[in-house]
């Protein structure tokens, strides 16, 4: 049976034959589909995220073709899109649809669910030392709501009038009025349904993450010994829990306006082909307030897990403690708090009272301070390190670079005065693709390369990984850096074609260049896909702790078992970043390893006692109710 010992001092604590893992039969369905195991759910999130990512990336290449060669025809487009690309020329309505769904997919489906869903699920139980999530059943539901939501979103491509096309922010009245643009018909209805399902998924996941982190830490795992990944996931979940319901509200009101004749967002509208609408008294700006109340925290919901992952990866591979652990945590807390009061910086020129603009400008520039602190701490961590360039490390370094480049342009945009000119220009596109898009995707890749051995028990190819990194890194800069200058020259975003405005023709070469660079980026992702799927089946077998890392997940066996640890859950004796301690031979010191002269039993009790996990297949109903018990009992005996 269990051949493994957790570590020397804890091998004694086995339950011996109480383990039922090996003769514990699971059907294909319970194991791979309706699984309640957090590791399987994490893989489900990852694979779905990767598929959505490919779709999103493909869409961006399609509309980049249009921007680079507005006067050309591409016969394959007609084959692919039918009536939306008659004669091989992308229809402007469809261009908008692609931009909209690309944004939605990347922001919500890839960088929120794909990133935070994958790694919160994988790492929270493993790194805090828990058998599973507080509520495995809700966790499963969370994935399936996400899956359903993805299906609904993609199904809008099958609608006759096309998918939602009013931008990923779906501002009404454009998105509220079917006659304003074709995509605002059935397409937007599906978009809204998809987002509501998504919110349900995010909330179910978030409640779970928070509960698990607060209540299910193993012995010795006090909050100040949590790896920074966990801090990041935890705060991300808090942000989500507090802000997604507001988006839900915004979406519901929009549904009312669309279908039930209310006027929350509509007033004084005379629409071509319809006439004067009866709606009066509503305000489109209200929607924007509600949307950005989620929208701004959302960008940090996307970024923070990536920052957490890169902290862990950088510390491990620089073989150094992360510099300023406390400062890092305080920065995350600061960012989390501030991100709730800066939403108005997306609305400086909506006609909102200029005084409000002033206030939002002040708080927005304050939020740049903790961001700067984090950057300096990363740099200090690298200083005098002994850096191993694993693919994960490369991507983490790439993240820091992107975060600097994109963060600095935030200082322009956060300045209300400067934003007058920059708003909705390509400068904004450059800003958020660097700081959010690229940085977070890099964090996600760092996570995938780093924890792949934990997820699949095999190693990914390093050389391909390096190549993937450099191609992606270079292409990301080539694509997004020139966009700053286009924006500063007055080129607006979300334009189907620039050649109708003579002044923009000087940017034609740049547009072609960007598209070519984007294609290069696309090729690089194919390398990743090959490496990823090939390694799942054919990669070399991974050892238990391939990166010689400190955190708790590396104390588990490579083969996944329900309940994570064969015997007792290990006790934690110190913080997660004790690398290269001068008093030790080895350059790492796992959290779960007891050192000389350290007390055998650490005094901090586990937040959740380990009710010996027998791995027996529980009935779904039992799991469900027990998970609620877990959820609501803050203290369990």
């Amino acid at each position, binding site marked *: 049976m269990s051949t493994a010992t957790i570590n020397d001092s804890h091998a004694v604590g086995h339950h011996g034959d109480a383990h039922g893992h090996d003769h514990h039969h699971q059907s294909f369905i319970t194991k791979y589909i309706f699984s309640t195991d957090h590791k399987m759910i994490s893989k489900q999130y990852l694979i779905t995220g990767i598929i959505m990512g490919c779709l999103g990336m493909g869409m961006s290449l399609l509309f980049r073709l249009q921007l680079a060669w507005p006067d050309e025809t591409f016969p394959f487009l007609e084959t692919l899109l039918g009536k939306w690309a008659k004669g*091989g020329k992308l229809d402007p309505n469809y261009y908008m649809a692609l931009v909209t769904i690309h944004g939605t997919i990347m922001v919500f489906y890839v960088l929120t669910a794909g990133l935070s869903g994958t790694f919160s699920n994988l790492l929270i139980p493993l790194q805090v030392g828990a058998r599973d999530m507080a509520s495995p059943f809700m966790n499963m539901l969370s994935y399936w709501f996400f899956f359903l939501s993805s299906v609904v979103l993609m199904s809008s491509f099958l609608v006759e009038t096309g998918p939602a096309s009013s931008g990923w922010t779906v501002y009404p009245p454009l998105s509220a*009025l079917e006659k304003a643009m074709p995509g605002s018909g059935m397409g937007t209805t599906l978009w809204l349904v998809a987002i509501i399902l998504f919110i349900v998924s995010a909330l179910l996941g978030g409640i779970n993450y928070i509960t698990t982190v607060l209540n299910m830490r193993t012995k010795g795992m006090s909050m100040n010994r949590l790896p920074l990944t966990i801090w990041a996931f935890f705060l991300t979940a808090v942000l989500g829990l507090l802000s997604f319901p507001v988006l839900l509200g915004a979406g519901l009101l929009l549904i009312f306006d669309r279908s039930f004749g209310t006027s929350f967002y509509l007033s004084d509208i*005379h629409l071509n082909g319809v006439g004067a609408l009866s709606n009066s008294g509503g305000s489109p700006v209200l929607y924007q307030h509600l949307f950005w109340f989620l929208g701004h925290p959302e960008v940090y919901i996307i970024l923070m897990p990536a920052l957490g992952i890169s902290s862990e990866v950088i510390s491990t591979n620089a073989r150094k403690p992360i510099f300023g652990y406390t400062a890092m945590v305080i920065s995350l807390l600061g960012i989390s708090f501030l991100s709730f009061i800066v939403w108005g910086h997306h609305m400086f020129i909506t006609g909102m009272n200029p005084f409000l603009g*002033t206030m939002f400008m002040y708080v927005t520039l304050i939020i740049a301070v903790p961001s700067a602190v984090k950057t300096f701490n990363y740099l200090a961590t690298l200083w005098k390190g*002994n850096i*191993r360039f694993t693919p994960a490390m490369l991507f983490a*370094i790439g993240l820091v670079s992107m975060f600097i480049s994109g963060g600095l342009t935030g200082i322009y945009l956060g300045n209300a005065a400067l934003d007058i000119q920059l708003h909705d220009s390509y400068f904004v596109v450059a800003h958020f693709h660097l700081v959010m898009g690229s940085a977070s995707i890099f964090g996600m890749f760092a996570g995938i390369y780093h924890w792949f051995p934990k997820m699949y028990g095999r190693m990914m190819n390093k050389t391909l990984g390096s190549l993937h990194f450099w191609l992606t890194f270079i292409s990301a800069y080539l694509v997004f*850096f020139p966009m700053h200058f286009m924006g500063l020259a007055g080129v607006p975003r979300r334009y189907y074609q620039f050649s109708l405005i003579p002044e923009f023709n000087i940017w*034609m070469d740049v547009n072609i260049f960007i598209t070519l660079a984007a294609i290069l980026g696309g090729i690089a992702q194919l390398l990743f896909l090959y490496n990823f799927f090939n390694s799942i089946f054919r990669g070399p077998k991974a050892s238990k702790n391939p990166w010689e890392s400190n955190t708790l997940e590396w104390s588990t066996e490579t083969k996944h078992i329900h309940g994570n640890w064969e015997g007792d859950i290990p006790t934690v004796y110190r913080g997660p970043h004790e690398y290269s301690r001068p008093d030790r031979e080895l350059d790492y010191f796992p959290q779960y390893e007891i050192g000389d002269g350290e007390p055998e039993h650490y005094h901090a009790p586990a937040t959740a006692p380990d009710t010996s996990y027998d791995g027996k297949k529980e009935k779904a109903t039992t799991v469900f109710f027990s998970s609620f018990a877990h959820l609501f009992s803050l203290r369990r005996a």
Partner: protein
Amino acid sequence: MNTILKLTLKFTLAVVIIFSAATLISDSVDIQGISTEHLSAEKPWVGADEYQYDPGQTVTPEKTLSSKVNWAILVFVVLMVLVLANAFDISKYTAKITGRETVNQNNVNKWIMLFFMIAGFAAVIWEYQTHGAMILLNDSSSAHGVDYDSMFTITLVLTTIVFFITQALLFYFSFRYAHQDGRKALYYSHNNRLEVVWTFIPAVVLTVLVLRGHQTWKSVVYAEDNYNGKMHSIEVFAYQFGWKARYAGDDGIMGNVDYKFISGKNELGLAYKPEVDSLVVDLKKQIAADEASIKNLNTTILDGLMADFTAAENLRDYKNMESVQKEIDAVKNGDRLDELKASIKRKTKQIERILAIQNDKKLFASTFTSAAMDDIITQEIHLAKDSLVTLNFRSKDIIHSAWLPHFRAQMNVVPGMPTKFTFRPTKSTEEAKKERGEEFEYYLYCNKICGVSHYNMKIKVVVESQEKVNEWLKSQQPAFIKREMAPVAPAIMNDTLKTSTDTIQKMVVR
């Protein structure tokens, strides 16, 4: 033996693939060449509202050649991946044969880090020089634009310095401290004094920026506060997909407007009694027609559609058959009925509301002044150089955004909510042409996604002397009267009379 065989095979395959890809690419690039000359700079601009996108228009035979390029790109992508996958398999096999790792990952990556930093910085500097020269900076055509540009420059300088320092440290550290066998990293977990320092420094820098920013912002949004020169105000009206400007007529007063008054002949919804009356008559007629349609929906209308369908069927006109079928479906499943009912309801409500204004004496008097009659609606915006102008924005349908990049001016145009932007143009079109070339014109672009022709929603802006503006205005026709008959003073005039936008803004403030 087996491995060596495989290796040779794969190698040959890779070579073949590379060669065929190279040939394909070079062929197609030869045909096409990447030039931008043929792009439609001179394409005549079609009025945005009439603008119908027609893909057929732009396709000329020689352009379809480039489809080869696309196929080549596609094929190339696939081949590249195959090649790379093969190449890496090869390195795996060589590793197997020779028994050692072919490359030292750490060493290679470390040098690429250094190289990337140097090449990257060179590229950034090149970008600043080449594309930086193309941006709008220090060439503002408005008074506040000068402040704006200096604010921008300060931010640019500061962030550029920080950019170079932090990126240099990042890549240099990565290079310098790459893994070496036998070396141990420095155990250094925190330094609170350092944390304080690097919290404090950005905080101070940002405070400076934010204070400057606050000043600039105030000078822009409260531009009229400390100004005692000439002031104008114009209404800028946005609709899917175009712009119109409205000037007060000879009376110097802007007429009232209401979205409920908008009709084919009264595009901006001016409060002009005869037009509004005829709109009411029109609406009543439409209601009657809708009611008739409801009555005949399942009889004559359906029969008519059926007949159309049969006719189309006989002609094998499948497209027509499909669209007629859709209409038949709509009749049968009740959609059409719902539509008609909604339309009647909407129009009845509109009439009700219009009559409510007309029947309220006070409201009537303050709404239907004669000020609207002589308002001038134009297809261009003409601004007087050096005098302060307020653009009052109004949207007919959805949110648009009026962006005048050369004037560093932008404001959203929101239905149901008046917005405005005040600024002082300081560079005439003539002067700008001298700097930017004869073809240059100022434009106001739409900068908020607003539908299918969003990318072609613009209006020409001309800055010239006050005299020229007046002259131009004289050449334009007033909305509802012939120039000769324009009254010198409004017929109904009382003290409370205000321009419509003023009243609305007052209401909002209250």
